[in-house]
């Protein structure tokens, strides 16, 4: 009995009402504007501090020399690209199950950010590989998985663009992202297994020897900075997606006028 009283309680009803309000695109648009700006500035500050620290003030690493400083961008980018893919799949599920358009918009606009992070992780990984392994590209398990992840991202983006109606693109991409997220652990596992079979990894720089605290702090800060920047970018892009989808409504027209500068 307590259950039914819970579902009818004003607390629950308010929660539902709040949720629906918050997931309405217009509400989100207005809320995210100041929020996005704050997060963006915070991200910039943290990124500058952590990267300058990492580049100039963190001590040199004994085994790899100064090339280890690439870790301050490679690892955050790699983390972020995986986290964003998981987020896209989760948002897709939310969109499909509860038919919340906002989740679809956020998922769609996270794709280019995630793809750019996967790209950055690949490029920095390759650059780091040259002084470490002596080759630009090594079929290392992590790099290979990252390459597959980049393909998954490109597939999502291509699917969005191929569909004539954006609503269809949303749902199709959500299904693809869900299929991808089920497969991602399998892909990672298989690639790692394949890698150990063919060439025992000599040195895994993402599992570098326990980091000294003076390296760890800028490293963690850099991760935080990248995450915040991604959130700020996603908010900005999602706001534009909302405007694009709602461009016929009066509020969106007014907003486009404001953005264009002729109020």
């Amino acid at each position, binding site marked *: 009995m307590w259950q039914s009283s819970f579902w009818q309680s004003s607390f629950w009803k308010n929660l539902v009402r709040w949720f629906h309000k918050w997931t309405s695109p217009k509400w989100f648009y207005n809320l995210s504007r100041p929020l996005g700006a704050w997060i963006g500035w915070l991200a910039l500050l943290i990124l500058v501090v952590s990267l300058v620290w990492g580049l100039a003030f963190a001590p040199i690493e004994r085994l790899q020399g100064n090339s280890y400083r690439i870790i301050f961008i490679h690892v955050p980018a790699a983390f972020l690209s995986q986290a964003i893919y998981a987020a896209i799949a989760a948002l897709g599920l939310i969109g*499909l199950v509860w038919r919340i358009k906002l989740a679809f918009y956020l998922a769609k606009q996270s794709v280019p950010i995630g793809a750019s992070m996967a790209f950055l992780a690949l490029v920095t990984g390759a650059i780091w590989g040259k002084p470490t392994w002596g080759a630009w590209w090594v079929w290392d398990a992590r790099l290979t998985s990252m390459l*597959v*992840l980049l*393909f*998954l991202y*490109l*597939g999502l983006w*291509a*699917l969005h663009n*191929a*569909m*004539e*109606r954006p609503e*269809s693109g949303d*749902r*199709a991409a959500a*299904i*693809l992202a*869900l*299929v*991808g997220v*089920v*497969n991602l652990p*399998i*892909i990672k*596992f*298989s*690639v790692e*297994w*394949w890698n150990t*079979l063919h060439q025992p990894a000599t040195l895994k720089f993402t599992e570098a020897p326990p980091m000294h605290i003076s390296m760890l702090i800028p490293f963690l800060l850099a991760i935080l900075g990248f995450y915040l920047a991604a959130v700020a970018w996603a908010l900005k892009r999602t706001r534009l997606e909302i405007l694009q989808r709602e461009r016929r409504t009066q509020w969106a027209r007014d907003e486009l006028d404001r953005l264009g500068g002729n109020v």
Partner: protein
Amino acid sequence: MKLSRLFTRVLQRELQLAYRRRADLANPPLFFLIVVALFPLGVTPDLERLATMAAGVLWVAALLANLLSLDLLFRSDHEDGSLEQLLLASSPPTLIVLGKALAHWLVTGLPLTLMSPLLAMMLALSPAAMPLLMLSLALGTVTLSLVGGIGAALTVGLRQGGLLLTLLIMPLFVPVLIFGTAVVQAAGAGLPWSGQLALLAAMAVLALVSAPLATVAALRIAVEE
């Protein structure tokens, strides 16, 4: 009517349609043959070196041949409206989709499997690995047909569907390729292979239960476009 009855009806229809389009039927095996024949021309005729690559080459070629035929899985059904009827059937559409995937395997995966020993000989694969090559291809292509069905469903209504399908599905085929090749290599080298084969089987089972659901969801979008 029992579900099994409908399933056999669907299977019967698909095989009949495949037979009536038998010109298309020849494409994957031909593609398989040509890729494998081109390989020594591009790399080396040295049998010893070919033998070390045979497992991988055969698997990659089979995978691409399979991919080639996936584009047609739902295309004609979409064009003539049969897809709508499929989704409005009184029985679960997943069952019908499963029937179509099985039919696809019977006319693609199975022929590729059956002709693989012949091509394996051309690449000097060790005879000990032959049975495992066939077994791994038979199991792996089941997964390819099922997972590929999702991609085919997502791209069925699109103009550049075939190209997009490749991009969407290739990353998902990576594990099948890795373990399929590994089984054959292990068997050729006299190492234990049952673990890899079990993983291939596990992937096939996972695809069997989950892929039809995703495929039907994708088809529902396709009929809307």
